């Protein structure tokens, strides 16, 4: 089975501004890829190129092995899309939209769409323009899944949703994964929500892909290390004791040192603890959000 999605050397320019710089990534079948980045990092430009809605300045975006700019319509038969801004025709109801989609997709499960809408609690006869933001996202998701896509692309789908709507959306995606093993590519700010779902993570910063890694390995190598030290003249300064680690962020607190490292391993930590002058050292796993903030947030503040 070919890769559902591949980005190769993608660069997107808007005049002199560069939204994406030489980005390359690939998504394996059945995986969930979460592309993270701050506002303006280039996520939406990448997604538009990926969906064949915008021509890349250079590089290629492939869906199911074919160029998405030239074969967009064919690729969309196998792809479901939930956009960041719900933009279905406002006068049409969810049922109208489902009926429209029934005419253009070779396989369309109107009953499944109706069932999802019912689960979401969306009134099917309400015009799309009259729905709340959360309901619009739910309608978009129901429509995106209506033709049982092999690939689901979600562009910040939980933006502006309340916790209940977010939960309903997660449940639907998890259900889709469980039922059919759909490949999912998503961009999001809601890191906590997708942490348990994503299998691979990419982080974009200023258009560059800083990181592209399996979630498991990512979480395994990132740790927060806290300790007090007696090595320096003051307890709140640090010296060379962290040299064995690649410290992404180090903050000096009143009680000691708080460091996030990106190459944690148990043996090295054991040697670290054994250093004379390192007291009360502890290492704890990090949530994805903290890893993201450490990488995509401000530059290493307080580091030596």
């Amino acid at each position: 089975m070919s890769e559902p999605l591949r980005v190769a050397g993608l660069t997107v320019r808007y005049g002199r501004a560069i939204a994406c710089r030489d980005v390359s990534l690939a998504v394996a079948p059945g995986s969930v890829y979460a592309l993270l980045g701050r506002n303006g990092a280039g996520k939406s430009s990448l997604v538009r190129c990926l969906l064949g809605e915008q021509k890349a300045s250079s590089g290629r975006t492939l869906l199911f092995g074919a160029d998405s700019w030239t074969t967009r319509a064919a690729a969309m038969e196998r792809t479901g899309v939930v956009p960041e801004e719900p933009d279905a025709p406002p006068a049409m109801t969810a049922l109208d939209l489902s009926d429209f989609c029934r005419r253009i997709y070779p396989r369309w499960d109107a009953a499944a769409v109706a069932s999802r809408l019912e689960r979401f609690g969306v009134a099917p006869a309400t015009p799309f323009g009259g729905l709340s933001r959360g309901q619009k996202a739910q309608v978009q998701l129901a429509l995106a899944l209506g033709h049982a896509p092999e690939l689901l692309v979600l562009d910040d789908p939980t933006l502006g949703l309340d916790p209940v709507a977010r939960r309903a959306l997660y449940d639907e995606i998890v259900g889709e994964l469980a039922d059919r093993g759909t490949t999912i590519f998503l961009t999001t700010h809601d890191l906590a929500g997708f942490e348990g779902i994503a299998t691979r993570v990419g982080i974009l910063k200023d258009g560059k892909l800083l990181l592209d890694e399996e979630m498991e390995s990512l979480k395994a190598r990132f740790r927060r290390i806290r300790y007090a030290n007696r090595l320096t003249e003051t307890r709140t300064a640090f010296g060379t004791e962290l040299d064995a680690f690649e410290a992404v962020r180090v903050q000096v607190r009143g009680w000691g040192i708080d460091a996030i490292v990106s190459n944690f391993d148990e043996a090295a930590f054991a040697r670290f603890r054994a250093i004379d002058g390192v007291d009360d050292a502890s290492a704890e796993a990090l949530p994805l959000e903290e890893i993201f903030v450490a990488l995509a947030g401000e530059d290493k503040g307080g580091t030596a």
Partner: protein
Amino acid sequence: MTGFFAIARREFRQYRVVLAAAAVASLGALAAPLFAAGPQGALARAVTAFLGAVVFAAGIAVGLGAATLAPGMATRRIGFDFARPLSPSAIWWGRLAGAMLLGASAALVLWVPSSMTGARPPWNDLWTGPKPPAAWPLLALGGFAVLFAIAHCASLALRSRSGLLALDAALAVLCGYLAWAAFSRLPVYRAEAPSLRIAVGLAVAAGVACLAAGYASVVRGRTDARTGHRALSAVLWTVIGAAVLCANAYAAWVHGAKPEDLREGFWVNSAAAGPWLTVSGPARGAEATFVYDAAGGRSERTFTPDWRGPVLSRDGRRAAWVEAASHGPYALWTWRLDAAGEKPVRTRILLESYPYLFVLSSDGTRMAIWEDGTLTVYDLEQQRALASARIPSGDRQSLGGTFSSLDIFRVYRADDRSIDLLELDVRARSLATLGRIETADGLRFFVADANGDRILTLGSRTLDVRLFAANGAPIATLADAPAEIRWPAFLPDGRIVLSERSSGSRRLRVFGSDGREGAAVPLPPASSISLGGEVAPGVLCLGVADAASRTSAWLADLNAGSVRKVADDLRPVTNPRAILDLGSEATKLFYGPRNESLVRFDPFTGERRVILGGP
């Protein structure tokens, strides 16, 4: 096509509420007679419903064109349609088709109730041009599509906020200028067909350009307004630019017509002496008039209206014409024909209105022009007016005139019964009334001799022919017995010939300069006979047409009283008021079959050469 139909259907359904608005508006049209009584009420209803339908449809075209795609592209949203398996073709043409269906439906909803009460499209009340073709609904749909595309292109271009807008504006001005240039290159008069071709061609090209540009913006831009703007500008200005360049090339081609391009029927006026003539007719789709040297082939297109073409002096050494323009002042041009390499000259003489009458003196140095009730004689060498006089002319009066000498210009102001004989003395700058010719039988035609000393009149009813002196004094009655056909002409030596059909037989009667009757020449049976020039002393050329309009050239020997046919399919070039010099080049010019060629033919040797036109 599935996507196309799905989008068209969705577009229609999405905005179908406008049909309800159209229905409400139709009630307004039905109520229009409340404000105008009688037949005016019915007209008010028809006009209100018709214009309402047009405005409604146009509003839908502009509204949907501006709002259906461009806003989404401008905000770089992932478009609902682009996230579906829909081609750009289906997205663009489907939306357009849906809008067209909606516009047509709204127009029908608005119009049909009024039409059921007997209202008909009020073309005659709204439009003074030609009646629209039967396929006008298709044209209206085409117009709707173009309006939709224009609105989309304008909306996208403005929303893109791109610097390309400045280039668009510059190109629009340039293309507008080039379009104007194409029209302005065409002759002012009788170029309706080329003008219409250019207008229709540019309109179609602009329509196609807008539709193609809209399509290109969707294909290339998708959700990127600036890319879409670039694509639409590239297509729009390429197509329109090519169209205006083609229009200019076509206009230049029409403008550059040569006498050799005269292919269809044309007509010729020749100088009394020499090889120069004026030739007019359709060339390259427009009416063209040339001053043409039948011997050497030199020519100049004069861009004059066919009803007031260039004039030649009797000696054939000078041509003059008034440049046609869409409005005055009109410049007088002259051309010395006897000087090799001489170019036409635009004189300083400007006329406020296009002249009704202009006549060159025999040597071409002076010109008499009548415009807006004033007769002025100009010196063409010095390009200044010498004398002028007020000569009003009534609605039913026509003016003619001739130089009696360089300083005397005689004016004939004629109506259907009489001729006023006037004389402008240039040296004395005075206008005198010489006399008046009254005809009891009515006046069909009159002609003066070369100096204006004698005048021949042809009556309206009995076709009596009379000869008068310059002051209107009767000299002789040449014919007063009723005849079926009669036509008089002066010969170069002052004698008079009269072609006549009476009691079924034709003859040519010859009179002396004093009106005394001389010989008579029996003529062959013919449907019509035209009098040509005197090719040799006492030998007159005739054009004879039979009942089937087949022409042949004949020679009449006025001394021997005999005629003989000299050629088939030829007819002498004639001008009822011109008196060609004896044996001049012009006496050997003939129209070929169906007036489609000009032939030089020597009736004595039989030598024949096509000068202009077909074989």
